[in-house]
């Protein structure tokens, strides 16, 4: 019996000392000034970490070790080490950073500064501001193409997509889209860009080679007033099959066939669905639902919402670590 207890104790020690292998999702809670950590296997919140004021945009470094957080009201970008879950660095960001994008080399961070109508480029390593690029009024969405050639900024009041050459940090082209463009997402091969417009209610599909719009999508959610259909977050599956569009206060996520641009379905999630993330294996899509304060999990294979997980107040952004 003694032996048995000893063995059991030994085993429990071993299991305690093993590294945590659970895959995790991180959610920024705009009103709580926290990051919620979700175990994506158990689909429960396992940790809540206090961060800077009004965290909104969040992203993972491409190597998956650090989490970048736009602490909008602290006018800074915080860097969290995911192994220790501690803020290890702060970066200059310009005023009121809301959305940002990291170049594939994990070096250049592009931050939109809403009040100053500029995009700030920061070198993550040296913490130097490399450039401040004048863009349209109220810059919002930010994306860098996976091949690193383009950085795209959306300006809400000017209703434009600004195409920034990442070599020279200059704008090469402006494309006028619907009212209040919010978010841009590139296909994995960097050939197609999708841009959502919140007030226009549209999604614009842009051919990156010649910077021309090839399609404009609109959404008609059954039983929902068209005013409430406000596209924001976009996620694309890497196989080029689906595009998921978060439709804001309509409380639905649109599933679009990324080849035919047909809307296949509208999935009911929480109130004011805002941003989306697929994670690396693209098994589940995670949505932040700002008003209802939760994260909905969509099974990508079945296109069904399987769970909604309570997080903090006004969840804004979500990222899933690459391990999952």
């Amino acid at each position: 019996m003694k032996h048995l207890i000893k063995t059991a104790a030994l085993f429990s020690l071993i299991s305690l000392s093993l590294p945590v292998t659970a895959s995790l999702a991180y959610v920024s809670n705009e009103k709580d000034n926290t990051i919620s950590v979700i175990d994506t296997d158990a689909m429960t919140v396992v940790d809540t970490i206090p961060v800077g004021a009004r965290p909104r945009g969040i992203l993972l470094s491409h190597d998956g070790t650090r989490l970048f957080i736009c602490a909008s009201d602290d006018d800074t970008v915080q860097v969290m080490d995911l192994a220790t879950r501690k803020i290890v660095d702060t970066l200059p960001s310009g005023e009121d950073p809301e959305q940002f994008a990291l170049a594939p080399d994990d070096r250049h961070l592009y931050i939109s500064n809403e009040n100053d109508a500029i995009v700030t480029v920061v070198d993550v390593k040296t913490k130097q501001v490399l450039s401040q690029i004048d863009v349209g009024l109220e810059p919002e969405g930010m994306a860098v193409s996976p091949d690193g050639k383009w950085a795209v900024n959306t300006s809400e009041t000017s209703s434009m997509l600004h195409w920034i050459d990442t070599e020279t940090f200059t704008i090469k082209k402006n494309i006028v889209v619907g009212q209040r463009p919010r978010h841009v997402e590139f296909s994995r091969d960097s050939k197609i860009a999708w841009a959502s417009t919140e007030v226009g209610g549209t999604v614009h599909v842009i051919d990156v080679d010649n910077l021309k719009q090839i399609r404009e999508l609109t959404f008609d959610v059954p039983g929902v007033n068209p005013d409430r259909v406000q596209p924001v977050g976009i996620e694309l599956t890497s196989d080029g099959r689906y595009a998921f569009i978060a439709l804001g206060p309509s409380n639905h996520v649109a599933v679009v066939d990324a080849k035919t641009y047909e809307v296949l379905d509208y999935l009911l999630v929480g109130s004011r669905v805002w941003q989306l993330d697929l994670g690396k294996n693209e098994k589940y899509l995670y949505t932040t639902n700002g008003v209802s304060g939760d994260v909905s999990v969509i099974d990508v294979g079945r296109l069904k919402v399987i769970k909604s997980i309570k997080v903090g107040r006004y969840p804004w952004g979500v990222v899933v670590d690459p391990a999952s």
Partner: protein
Amino acid sequence: MKLSEYWHCFLGIQTREWLRFWQQRTRFASALVRPLLWLVVFAAGFRAVLGISIIPPYDTYITYETYIAPGLCGMIILFNSMQGALSMVYDRELGSMRVLLMSPLPRPFLLVTKLLAMGVVSVGQVYVFLLLALLVDVEPPLWGYVAVLPALVLTSLMLGALGLLIATWIKQLENFAGVMNFVIFPMFFMSSALYPLWRMQEASPWLYWVCQFNPFTHAVEAIRFALYLQWNGQAFGITAAVTVVLALLATAGFQPQRTRILGTRTG
């Protein structure tokens, strides 16, 4: 009395119920029209209403169709039980029930068997309804269809016993309209079938308590939880307890020849 005789009787009553069901195929179909109208037409207008909060047993936001489907399962059983009870009034005086009650087997056994037989037909209808509900995206987990069976049988026994009890009071056959107004509608509307109870509580506290005391609420919740593979001991327990009490009262009170048939008192 030998066990085989009970079994023989049990089978006989079951077979007779299925025969009756087969002869009344159109009634079966029309009994499905009512819940389907609720599901497709009524619920359509409220599609987005419930996408506000998550309540057990649901894991995420649901459409109104998904919410009312268990209540409509209950509705099918409710209507069938009341209609069945009424037909028992008729049968008691003129039909096969009279022959049945002449059986030497104990009357409670005969009546419960009869209720069970009616229940089996109702449960069959519920499953057809659930299959059709798939068309409007009411998609419970696959095992839920199995797990819900005990809840459905229990509900049909409870409502069957209630029907039987009412049948002992009914003096005239034409009283189905009265049963509709004073039993079926209040039971259905003052329950969690159409709205979750927290909504009722917001609207009016007394209505909430009426709903809480309505056994149909607990039957619907037992069905709802089982269909989504969750155990609701309270709902199941209350439904079972009410079933036992009603069945005892009904079998004790069920006496033939107390009904006025065809205008003349026969008893």
